[in-house]
């Protein structure tokens, strides 16, 4: 598999509410080899950030402001958000 810099995606990852507290931050830049899914992004985050181990393996996620499944592909420049169970209203 091609792992040159041009074959990687860079995404912005955002954390909210309890997840932001667990990870200790509200966002991060994550780069990973193509092809990549939201699930891959979650794995990266859980491996590399202290505290992120406490995140669920299969959290609710959104890409570019829209809920997606974890097998959704991410493209360069995407905004990936990990969402705790929604409790609004």
């Amino acid at each position, binding site marked *: *598999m091609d*792992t040159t810099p041009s074959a990687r995606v860079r*995404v*912005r*990852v*955002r954390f*909210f*509410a*309890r997840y932001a*507290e667990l990870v200790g*931050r509200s*966002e*991060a*830049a*994550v*780069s*990973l*080899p193509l092809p*990549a899914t939201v699930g*891959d*992004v979650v*794995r*990266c*985050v859980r*491996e*590399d*950030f202290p505290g992120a181990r406490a995140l669920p393996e299969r959290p609710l996620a*959104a890409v*570019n*402001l*829209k*809920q997606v499944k974890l097998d959704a592909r991410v493209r360069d*420049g*995407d*905004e990936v*958000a990990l*969402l*705790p*169970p*929604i*409790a*609004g*209203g």
Partner: protein
Amino acid sequence: MIKAACGVRNAEWMGWARSHVRWAEHVSFLTRAAISIDVLLADVSSPGHGGTCLFLGTVRNGPDEHGVTAIEYSAYEEMVEAEFGRLLADARGRWPEARIAVRHRLGTIPVGEASIAIAAAAPHRAQAFEACRYVIEEVKRRVPVWKKELRVDGTEVWVDPSGRPTAKPSHV
């Protein structure tokens, strides 16, 4: 394993992803001030719409709660705007004649004050009730807002979607 070869960075995001992000440019569905019911009702009123249903969700401190004094609401704000836009488009698809307005308040909201208000006006009452109910049910399901109960004993507890506090108090 190639997939593990990912890099995470602590640096703040530099903003170049912004152009991929779309959200409604019109009036915000979010507010940090008290929600004005009058404004919402005026938004949906029309001479041809004889039935209006308003739903208010207010911060509760009932027998199921434990000395709640306020709830702190936070959100993925850009997505809230986008999701409300989609949600209202869905509602208008189901009830084409309905006029619907919604506001969600964020920040610290004391017991008894509204966190959300939905107004739905329609020519006849059935559509008004149904559209209003649809919107609040969908909000609970898909609008990324979270709440943390602030209690008289000083503790703070994230609320899970079933309405009950999560096992782990957030202040730990």
